[in-house]
Every structure is written in C-alpha cells, then in structure tokens.
C-alpha cells in the first residue's frame, strides 16, 4: 500500500480545512505500520482515503498496485473502527459471517471465533457483550474474508485500560502468526511501539507526516519488552517527534 503526496481539503463554516498536506507513506506486504498524532491531525482522513471511503482532493493512493476501489472490489481490505459498528440484530457468529455473505467467500467461522477468543459467545447479540468483546467481534469480522490489508482506526480507543491491554496483546500474537499488512491509527505511543514495525508521526493543522520511526525490536514481542531500555528509547523518540511537531506549530 502506498500513499504519495496525499492532500485533502474540505470546506467548512470556518473556511477551508486542510486535513492532510502532501502526506506520503508506504506499508509493505506483511508490515505493521502505526500512525500516531494528536486529535484532528488527519490520521483518520488518511486511513479513510486508503480504504476508499473518501476521495482525497490531491495526491495518489495505491493499494496492492491499484486504486482503493479496486482493492475494495478484490475484497482485500478489512476495516476495524473505534465504534465497532456491529449489526445489533445479528448474533456474534452472523456478524462475523457478514463479509462472507457480501464477498461470496467461505471461511471457517468457528475457528476464527476461537482465534479471537469469542467462540463461547457465538450466539450472543452484540448488545449482550462488553466493549472489549464487541471489539474482538469486529476484529474477527474484519479478518473473515481474508483481507490483505487490515485498516484499524483507533480500534481500542473506546475501551477501558484493562481490556485495551488485553486486546493489544492478543492483536500482537494474532498478527505475529498471520503477518498481514496493517495500518493502525492510534494516539497511544507505547501501543504503537509495541505493535509496529514502523511508527509514523503526524502533526496537526495542516496534517503532515513529520517522522517515520523504525521499530527494531525483536519478534515475537511480549509486554515484558515495555521495560527494556530499547523500548523506552523508541517511545522517547516518537514522543520527541510529536513534541517537536507541536512546537513547530507555535
């Protein structure tokens, strides 16, 4: 997946808003890349442009060598958002089955539910589950049709810290087994460092990419890594890039 000189402007009551200013970014096959940045820095805009949900006003988006719409058509994208957007009238299992119905593919839904730890709740409705469980369902649903690029927009943003921690580690383990390309938007620095191969730092208004930090921590990773000097140094580097960016604004 590649984004070149991507810009996005939209009109608002307070004049034109520049959400993204010439952002360029590459995510290789099987690479886990996080975008961190302050609220409103355009990271969600970037992700939505990659998903083909908005047409950016400038620049180019290539997903798997084609336009985002082609990637949609090839059923190559999986989307997880902060609010999971599950269908309230469907059971967990039927929610996970949804992308299979849309794309006409088949998959072992039971095994998938097992993999994200919700097999016991297959027959529950989303309204009967906690936020953390709902997000697991959203993850299973995003993976069901076998996407090649997983787009995650602050997937743990609405969760309490305990569930967040737990899901983060599960995502880590899951990804280290499956190794599909992930673009992960978050505002939690240590989360980005723990999960990613690279952390891209953005600054706000206008949204620009200001740093690209390679995370050279060995895999498989675990939470024990968080107390190592290298981890601390890397989070420090990301934090410094964020600070410089916000200082540059003033």
């Amino acid at each position, binding site marked *: 997946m590649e984004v070149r000189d991507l810009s996005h402007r939209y009109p608002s009551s307070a004049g034109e808003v520049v959400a993204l200013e010439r952002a360029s970014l590459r995510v290789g096959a099987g690479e886990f890349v996080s975008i961190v940045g302050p609220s409103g820095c355009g990271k969600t805009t970037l992700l939505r442009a990659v998903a083909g949900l908005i047409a950016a006003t400038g620049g180019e988006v290539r997903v798997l060598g084609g336009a985002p719409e082609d990637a*949609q058509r090839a059923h190559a*994208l999986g989307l997880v958002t902060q609010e999971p957007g599950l*269908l309230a*009238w469907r*059971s967990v299992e039927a929610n996970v089955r949804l992308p299979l119905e849309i794309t006409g593919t088949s998959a072992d839904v039971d095994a998938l539910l097992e993999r994200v730890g919700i097999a016991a709740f297959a*027959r529950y409705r989303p309204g009967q589950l906690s936020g*953390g469980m709902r997000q697991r369902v959203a993850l299973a649903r995003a993976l069901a049709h076998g996407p090649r690029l997983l787009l995650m927009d602050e997937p743990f943003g609405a969760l309490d810290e305990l569930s967040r921690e737990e899901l983060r580690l599960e995502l880590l383990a899951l990804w280290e087994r499956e190794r599909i390309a992930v673009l992960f938007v978050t505002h939690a620095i240590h989360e980005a460092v723990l999960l990613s191969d690279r952390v891209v730092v953005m600054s706000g208004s206008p949204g620009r990419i200001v740093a690209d930090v390679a995370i050279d921590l060995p895999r498989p990773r675990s939470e024990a890594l968080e107390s190592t000097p290298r981890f601390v140094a890397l989070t420090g580097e990301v934090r410094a890039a964020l600070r410089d960016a916000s200082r540059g604004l003033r």
Partner: protein
Amino acid sequence: MVDTPVRAPAPADMSDLPVLNVRPPRQPLIAVALPVIVVVAILAGWEAWVRIAHVQRYLLPPPTAIAQALAGDPMRFIEAAAVSLGAALGGLLIATMGAFSLGVLMAHSRALERALYPPALLLKVMPIVAVYPLFLIWFGFGIWPRVLIAALITFFPVLVNTVIGLRSVDPQAHDFLRALHASRSQVFWRLRLPSSLPYLFAALRISVPLSLIGAVVAEFLSGASGMGQLILVANGDFDTPALFGAVIVLAALGVSLTVGISYLERRVLDWHESYRGV
C-alpha cells in the same frame, strides 16, 4: 477473562429476519388489579349518580343501559366493527406498502426526496373530509372510498419514518460494508432495512389508530355501513346507550390493534435498545 457477558444467551437464530423471543409475563397481579378496581369504582359511581339524580337517559345513560344496548343486539356492533376494521386495515396495508416503497426511493436519492416530499406533504395537510365527496363520485358507495381515506390519513407517518429509518444506519457498519464494495441491494437488505424497523413500528403505532379514525369518519359521511353509520343512526334516534356502545367498541378495537402492534414489535425488535431494558 475480564469480559463477562451481562445477559442470558440469545436465541440460536442468526438471520436478519426477526428472531422470536418469548418472554414470560412479569407483571405482578397488582398492576392488573389496580386499573380494574378504578374502572369498576368509576362505573359504580356513574350508575349510582344517574339513578339517584334521575339524569335523562338520552343525556347520560347508566352503564347498565349501555351494557344492555351492547348485549341486546351484539351482531349489530360486531358486523359494523368488522366493516370498519376491514376498511381501516385495508387502507393501512395499502398506505404502508405504498409509503414504504416510495420511502425506499426517497431514502436513496436526495433529488427524488426533494421532488416527492412536497406532494406527499400535500397529501398530509389535505382535509380528508373535503376529499371524501370526490372519492364517492369516483369510487361509488362501496368499501373503496373508505379504504382510500384510511390509506390517505396513514400514508404520511409511514413515509416520513421509512425515509428517516432507512437513513439512520450505523455509520461504522456502513463504512465496513463500503470497504467491502457491498452493492446497494446488499446494504439495503443487510443494513438499511433492519435499521429502519424501529422507525417503521413507531409509524405503525401512530397509523393504526389513525386508520380507524379515517374509516369511521368516512362511514359517518357516507352513511352506508360500518361503525360510522351505526353512530349516525343512533344519533338520529337519540339512542345514547348505542352511541356509548359504539365508543366502547371503537376504543376496544383501537386498544386491541395497538396491543397487537406492540406485541409484534416486541418480538421483531428484541435486539433494539428500547426492548433491552435500558
């Protein structure tokens, strides 16, 4: 595991079609008994006052006289009620199908919505009493003019709620489907239609009593048959007990229909916030 389910298991079904969820009645006896006691007390007081004060029967008949009117010739009321009910439900059915179809079109196209909303609003503000003579000229004295009046009066609530309901989809769920390149019909059947059901039921709750009003008013104007005609005749005869009887029968019809809709709603929308005891 931090995450624990907060509710009992849901039914096994998992389609987009309504899941039937039978709930045990939870109302304590007192909740049923209290209103009954109040109604009985009111009726007793009414009866006593009419007898003691010698109120004229054509002004206010005692409850026993009303009961006699109802019990004396029940078929008169049952037949009239059946005619009215048929016209009301027929009209409601036509209006619901028509308004829902139109609502689907309008929900998918802002241009169509802008074009069709003003004429639809015209239907709503049109006084049915003024239109009815036209319907009589066009469709005669049969059941059709009444069905159409009932349809006319119920059309707008269903239309408006359908459009709002079909548009009230969870944006994240919609994004997910779009990222999969889901077709319009896939989005409609899997997301829009189920999302609109709470709104459709809200419309039906409004429309069901309206349809009955429409049918009875139409019968009242034409005087051909049904509860409207029964009221017209009883009024001409100063048959006040029969008038009260008609009111009771119509109220019972309205209540039964509303209870029926609520029951259906409860079963179809058991996933919705309004039925999850929030």
